[in-house]
């Protein structure tokens, strides 16, 4: 009996502390930054210095370097630079990479992760399309000198008239020429852009990707796609609001050069376990496409908006987390009038480079309660993920007054 009471006590403690987050037993969250700004993606240097990119400038700057010199978990040395807001933030081989909505820059870091020349970054990629819809350019790098950039489709489903009832899909979809996929650039060559003959296009048929990460175990790129919106609004004859809240799946893909995941012609129905033809291209929710595209390796419920992906390579967390994927789900808006969902970080275990399929919610309650599960009411919306040198992970919040948490495991 005592044991049960003790266990309940432990559970309660983990519910009320942790800076409002609900975490599995043994995990603890501390607030690194709060009420700071719209923190999009995050990168941590080998010495533990944290870099964050803001979706809107704060005091005229878009990138903040955070250093905790006295070990209390809070940054006491903060340095702001970069006059562009944006999403992408990554560190590789002594450089910090940062993206605006049209370009990718890099800053040389010294051995202490100081920014060598904060006023003069090297421009690595330029001239990328940003047409309002899905314009953030999320980035990651491999370990062979390549940079991967998401260029989101500036459309919901490539209709002639975007999001308009009855407007058919364009065939072939011209957006795919310069968006709706992942582009690959050299990490150290200045001023690259689209080029000819899709020579930089790595993968296509992806509507929009914000969470992406290089998996060191499989040595391949993994991405989380934001699936299409508004099935029941545009096609009430095929889907009701309840179905439309869950469909299509938010998909994880393992990409290789030349991957085609089928957007906008198909979407993945996680209940029928198959690709179905998009309604703008003659689909009715059951018809399959004549051409088969790459299948996802994991399918999550619809509209949760995966904005961060991180493969865990640390040793701090229990063994089951090693090489598994953390996914930050920003939270849905396109489930209305059904209740919204998301606003949590999920863990998807992997074995031998493949997901087991048994994903679970890892960090919950970013919204701050069931009555706040909506994009405008949520207190926090998880966005970026990164791993620190000690094996802790960081989660960002891109609400206007967002911040950063650090989640650690203590036996």
């Amino acid at each position, binding site marked *: 009996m005592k044991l049960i009471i003790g266990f309940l006590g432990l559970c309660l403690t983990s519910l009320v502390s942790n800076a409002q987050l609900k975490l599995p037993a043994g995990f603890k969250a501390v607030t690194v930054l709060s009420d700071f700004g719209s923190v999009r993606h995050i990168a941590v240097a080998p010495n533990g210095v944290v870099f964050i990119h803001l*979706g809107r400038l704060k005091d005229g700057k878009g990138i903040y370097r955070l250093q905790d010199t006295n070990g209390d978990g809070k940054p006491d040395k903060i340095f702001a630079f970069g006059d562009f807001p944006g999403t992408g933030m990554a560190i590789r081989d002594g450089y910090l990479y940062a993206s605006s909505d049209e370009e990718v820059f890099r800053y040389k870091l010294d051995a202490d992760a100081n920014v060598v020349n904060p006023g003069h970054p090297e421009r690595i990629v330029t001239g990328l399309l940003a047409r*309002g*819809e899905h*314009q953030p350019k999320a980035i990651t790098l491999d370990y062979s000198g390549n940079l991967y950039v998401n260029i989101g489709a500036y459309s*919901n489903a490539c209709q002639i*008239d*975007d*999001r*308009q*009832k009855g407007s058919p899909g364009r065939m072939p979809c011209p957006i795919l020429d310069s968006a709706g996929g992942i582009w690959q650039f050299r990490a150290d060559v200045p001023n690259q852009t689209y080029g000819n003959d899709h020579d930089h296009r790595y993968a296509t048929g992806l509507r929009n990707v914000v969470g992406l990460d290089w998996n060191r175990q499989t040595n391949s790129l993994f991405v989380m796609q934001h699936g299409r919106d*508004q099935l*029941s*609004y545009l096609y009430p004859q095929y889907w009701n609001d309840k179905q439309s809240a869950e469909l299509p799946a938010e998909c994880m893909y393992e990409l290789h050069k030349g991957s085609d995941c089928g957007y906008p012609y198909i979407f993945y129905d996680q209940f029928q376990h198959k690709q179905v033809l998009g309604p703008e291209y003659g689909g009715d929710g059951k018809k399959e496409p004549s051409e088969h595209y790459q299948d996802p390796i994991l399918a999550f419920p619809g509209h949760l908006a995966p904005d961060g992906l991180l493969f865990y390579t640390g040793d701090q967390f229990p063994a089951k987390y090693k090489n598994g994927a953390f996914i930050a789900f920003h939270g849905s*808006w*396109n489930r*209305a*009038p059904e209740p919204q969902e998301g606003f949590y970080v999920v863990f998807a275990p992997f074995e031998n480079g493949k997901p087991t399929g048994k994903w679970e919610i890892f960090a919950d309650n970013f919204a701050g309660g069931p009555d706040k599960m*909506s*994009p*405008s*009411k949520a207190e926090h919306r998880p966005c970026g993920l990164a791993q620190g040198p000690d094996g802790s992970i960081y989660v960002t919040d891109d*609400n*206007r007054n967002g911040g950063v948490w650090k989640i650690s495991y203590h036996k």
Partner: protein
Amino acid sequence: MKYLLLSFALAFGFMSLTSKPAAPAQSGIKASITRGKQVYLQQCLACHQVDASGVPNMNPPLIKTKQVLGDKTALIKIVLNGLKGVDIDGDSYNGVMAPHPDLTDREIADVLTYVRNSFGNKASAVTAAQVKVVRAAN
């Protein structure tokens, strides 16, 4: 000549509509709000949300904004022509709103009257006649 007569007749029709006494117009607003709610549920809610609070960075809120409470002509045009990219109180919204020319004058008047008198908003009604004029000049 026929058209001239017709436009006179139409103009007269408008005048007689707008010069009706206030009391029936009041009950007219109530009926308009009731009908407008149904239009909102079908056409607007998916993006602007159940409580009209919108989606940060994407779909604008419809609560006490100058677009909702202000110039009716501009507001009617948003429904007729759609909208992409708008700044409200320093926040930018990038969501794409499709045009809704398929809605009738009555439906547009009703839904705008509903929105202007719900979610904490309080503003005068939009009439079908006003929508008709804006649509004709659009």
